[in-house]
């Protein structure tokens, strides 16, 4: 079942110099893709590829200049009011920097209860219990529900961000460089968490990242972006093992690797 359909999404930015000299810049140029329910689509690219602008448009944090966006069979390109509220109840975002996207003056409990209050959702138990359940689901100690974000490490804070996204039981979670700022050991844990949550709940991810190796761990399908366009899109195995586009090949070749021989010897020892 197609959950999200982006059709020729385009975003142009216009900047004005002195005396109204116009400079136009097309950040995203006619990008089309679909996301099925329960799958992970990764959008990868280098800086300036337009991946973050794409993420913002499908999260409806930014309006496209042209193109349409459909969610769950409904055109949400220009959704407002009740339609937009319905969209927000189903689509959540996890940002790169957990500390700047969590209110430092609110306890974790309050942060996790807020989406329910906004959406007017009453969970089975109390909202407080719901918040504790969410903490448990993302591997945090529910006894810490009255702590503030600053009292957690980076990886734990990102778990709070993920729990907040899951609070309304969304159908789509957009991860915008959600693991990029984390140390590698923590990153591995958070990726594992994201995979487990999807297995448990069956929602979809749009996973925006610049790190192809990370994408390989989580994506079912991959879209490679360069200069505002999708240069290649397909099943992860195909894009990684048999890339068709020249740019994709350059990108893959540039990834630093550990000598596979060393990896093999180490794994044999342990």
């Amino acid at each position: 079942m197609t959950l999200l359909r982006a059709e020729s999404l385009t975003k142009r930015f216009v900047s004005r110099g002195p005396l109204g000299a116009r400079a136009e810049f097309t950040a995203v140029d006619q990008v089309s893709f679909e996301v099925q329910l329960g799958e992970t689509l990764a959008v990868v690219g280098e800086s300036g590829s337009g991946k973050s602008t794409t993420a913002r448009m499908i999260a409806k944090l930014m309006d496209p200049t042209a193109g349409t966006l459909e969610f769950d069979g409904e055109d949400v390109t220009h959704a407002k009011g009740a339609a937009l509220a319905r969209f927000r109840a189903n689509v959540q975002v996890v940002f790169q920097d957990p500390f700047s996207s969590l209110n430092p003056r609110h306890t974790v409990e309050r942060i996790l209860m807020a989406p329910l209050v906004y959406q007017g959702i009453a969970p089975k138990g109390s909202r407080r219990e719901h918040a504790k359940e969410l903490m448990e689901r993302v591997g945090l100690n529910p006894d810490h529900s009255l702590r503030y974000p600053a009292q957690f490490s980076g990886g734990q804070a990102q778990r709070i961000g993920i729990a907040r996204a899951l609070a309304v039981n969304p159908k789509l979670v957009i991860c915008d460089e959600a693991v990029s700022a984390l140390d590698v050991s923590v990153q591995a844990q958070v990726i594992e968490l994201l995979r487990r949550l999807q297995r448990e709940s069956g929602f979809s991810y749009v996973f925006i990242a610049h790190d192809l190796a990370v994408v390989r761990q989580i994506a079912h399908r991959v879209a490679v972006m360069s200069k505002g366009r999708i240069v290649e899109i397909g099943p992860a195995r195909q894009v990684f093992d048999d890339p068709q586009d020249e740019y994709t090949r350059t990108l893959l070749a540039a990834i630093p690797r550990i000598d596979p021989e060393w990896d093999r010897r180490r794994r044999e020892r342990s």
Partner: protein
Amino acid sequence: MSELLVVQDLTVTFPTTRGPVDVVRGVSFAVGRDETVGIVGESGSGKSMTSLAIMGLLPKGATTRGSIRLNGTELLGRPDRELRRLRGDQMSMIFQDPLSSLNPYYTVGLQIEEMYRAHRGGTRKAAREVAIRALGHVGLPEPERRVDYYPHQFSGGQRQRVMIAMALVCEPALLIADEPTTALDVTVQAQILRLLAGLQRESGTGLVFITHDLAVISSIATRVLVMRRGEQVEYGTAEQIFAEPEHEYTRMLLESIPRIDDSLDDPPHGSLIGSPDDEVIL
């Protein structure tokens, strides 16, 4: 191989309101001439503090113990006036974020010239020629024109090339690169790594390469030091560290790296991964 830099039992202590804290504790390693040594660790491992201690650039109030010898001369305890003569001349450093590491108010030419003239003297004109040659050497096209550019007129990768040109302008014996490719796109990272490796082969500079990325270090270093929370976890040849790691933490770190060759269908590499409560709670 004669050792260029020998660090022995280095400890760096910071005064805090809760008393002194060791940010680096008992670290020992050596860098040979013409050799690349990698220092890897996650955030808070003390890897950057180690490099600043070598350069004598630790923040005010930090104290050091142990020994750092460059070409047989002890650096610790020497007055800043003497260290200043070595900095930029005998040893130099490049940083993670080239944009903020270059002064936005001056042309890159001037920033290279002032460093050259601080150590070698000479006229501005002569230094300018040296700067142009240095910029050409790191693969910047049209160095005669670019020498008058300001840092913001370059792309991220070009800026790091400028930093490298500047760091090598006095042909130092030792270059410390602190996460030099972390802020760069992966294709640009590959170019910078190639450039560094090429320059190093050519000039015989000893290179200390600091990074959080084990895959990057594996392609460039001959010896590797693994650090965690200010302590030395493991030190050995790249092959030892990557193929036969002794320490549990090194193994965990290596297993944590996402591999481009592993796919989603492979079993998760979570067996070695601890619980999230392993992380520090303040």
